[in-house]
């Protein structure tokens, strides 16, 4: 009996798999930001092991459901490739000015069509390491981001293509909650990519120095 051919331990990541991976990343990234930037009290968060490290995730049911609903739609949009950017804006509760914008660019990785060979599969461990690096970077940003004294709220914006299928009564067009260029600083964070998506992270914050 001929030795059986070594089956590939892991298939190339599918669009669906990649979408879920990206969505999951957004969940943890959003939670990390909300915790690190003190949008919600630290009491609301509990530690969860994820990506080989400890991530703080909210245990406030209302917030959990809220993020869940948003990410469900983002997931749908990701599947159709109609979302190009996700923004988590931190806004002053009283003055309604945008203090920070956490921007996640979503790019589709171009598949080389001319080659017959399929692109080398990116190991999941590598993807996880990249995600871990982004999350760690988010944590580390507190060292240079201005201290927020005032109570804040957040809002999640999605930049979609015009053709995106938008549930009319759930999603509304809105102001991008921009920060004026003269009063803002931007820091590019790391990025991560699956075989399908490439996510680039960036933070812009109000800095009137």
């Amino acid at each position, binding site marked *: 009996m001929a030795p059986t051919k070594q089956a590939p331990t892991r298939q190339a990541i599918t669009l669906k798999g990649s979408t879920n991976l990206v969505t999951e990343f957004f969940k943890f990234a959003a939670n990390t930001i909300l915790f690190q930037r003190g949008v*919600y*009290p630290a*009491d*609301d968060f509990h530690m969860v092991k994820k990506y080989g490290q400890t991530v703080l995730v909210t245990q*406030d*049911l*209302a*917030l959990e459901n*809220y993020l869940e*609903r*948003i990410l469900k*739609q983002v997931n749908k949009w990701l599947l159709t*490739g109609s979302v*190009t*950017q996700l*923004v988590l*804006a931190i*806004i002053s509760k009283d003055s*309604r000015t*945008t203090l920070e*914008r956490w*921007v996640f*660019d979503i*790019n*589709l990785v*171009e598949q080389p069509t001319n080659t017959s060979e399929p692109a080398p599969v990116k190991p999941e461990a590598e993807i996880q390491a990249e995600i871990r690096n982004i999350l760690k970077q988010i944590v580390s940003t507190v060292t240079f981001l201005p201290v927020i004294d005032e109570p804040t*709220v*957040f*809002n*999640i*914006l*999605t*930049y*979609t*293509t*015009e053709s*995106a299928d*938008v549930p*009319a*009564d*759930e*999603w*509304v*067009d*809105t*102001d*991008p*909650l*921009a*920060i*004026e*260029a*003269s009063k*803002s600083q*931007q820091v590019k964070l790391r990025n991560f990519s699956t075989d399908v998506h490439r996510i680039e992270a*960036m933070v*812009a914050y109000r800095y009137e120095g």
Partner: protein
Amino acid sequence: MSYLPKTPSRHHRSRSETKTPLTPSLTSGLNALSLGFPRQGSSSPAKTKADVSINPFLASRPASPVRRVQSRPASPIKRATSGSLHVSDSLQRQASSGVIRKGGVESRIDVITRDYVPPRTQKRSRSQPNRDTRDRFITARDMTEEVTATLDMMSLNPQSASPGHTARLAAATGVPINRRVLAYHEPPPPSSSDPLLAQARELVRPLYARPGALPTSTSSSTGKSRKISTTPERVLDAPGMLDDFYLNIVAWGAQNVLAVALAENTYLWRAESGDVVQLGEMPEGTYASALDFSMDGQYLGVGSGSGAVELWDVETQTKLRTMTGHSTQVGCLSWNQHVLTSGCGDGSIWHHDVRVARHKVGELTGHVGEVCGLKWRSDGELLASGGNDNVVNIWDGRIGDVAPGTRAGARWTKRNHTAAVKAIAWCPWQPSLLASGGGTSDATIHIWNTTTGARLHSVVTPSQVTSLQWSPHKKEFLSTHGYPTNAVMVHAYPSMEKVVEIRDAHDSRVLYSAISPNGDVVCTGAGDENLKFWRVWEVPKVKKGKEKEGSRSGTGSTSSGILSIR
């Protein structure tokens, strides 16, 4: 407004002034329909109105630019391309990153434009750096570049066909190829936790904190190679065991019999056979508050809540006598040969000679609070007592010299503790050493040299020290602790290093402990109504033969040092 359609730059200026989202405005250059603002993005206007009122972020949007943009007629294609000419990649990037450059190069240019609209073909500003693609005055760029720039700006799906084709398509049809900025219709929920509650929680956090937390509650951590089991060897049910810091109701005698008081009942557990017998019961209305075996393990002294001290024969399980006189609870007892010393709630310490009818042979008054720790040194030279007045007293044991009624002063009085001192233990292998441990607000173990009166070592523990036990064979001692760690800890002496810590040894604070006569097992009792046996130390096997010689190290169940009181 009148010349607005003619000058795309004017269009830009108004945008940067009003902070209108750049991307939708750009779209307006292509097609007014693609504007991203609520009235158009939503299906029904009425619904959107409601949404606007719900969503605070939408409400903050200025109304005027919306109206202006809306009123603008659908742009001609030519304008669309020319309008896009002046919007460079970088500007687009700013827009998508939510930053609008105000007072930047383009706005300065815009100001000029206001006065003078240059013809498209005119070449000017040669001095301007070529790199600044935002300079709309440089019109010498070829069209393909412009188109790609436009494309880039619109962030077309890269998977769509060739850029040129898409651009032509876009230009020709005015199809909105752009992004929409969408937000979820409801604002994120406010934090459900009450700020007052959160603050209160913050304040009590130190109480819940378990300093020096270990990775797991049952792991032992030291560089030592010795492994101490962090699970009890045996657990006995002790229903009705009182949860009172000021009692001492577990005793382990030289006959290898463990006595435990469960409310008014006293039980004996024979370690060899595992038999349990009920020794006796306290009179109605009171409870057993202190137990101690005589040095030979034949007799058991039982203190009661009413102040009586009873003497029981372990072998026959009969009560020999009751010694009354104390006014309140007898919280601790300690034997020295035929003398049973009792510590009382009123702060007095009495010596009872159990052989004579007039049993009270001495009284030591040095405590103003309840006496809760009392231990004779094994040679009977010294007596140590600890009280609720945070004081440790060390008394001279020569009671014969003290006539009844005489008030003998303590040899040493130590006031270093800041809480009740219940835990008292004499070191079996270095007679001058005494260990004492303080209660909740102190939580410190002090080691004293009773010869010189010096404090040799101190170690701060995470929680109240409820009892101390020295190992007879090893240079170590064990301490039991109360809330919040409920731990049993073993410390090395004299380094005071923590050898092992068993967190949550009991479900409630560990209050009582007793060491087996051969010194390998420690029994602990707690308010969770369990007795747990911990094999902490090993009995050195080689030494066994040598020690038969007569030192009362207590390695066997009987020892030659024991003096019968009969």
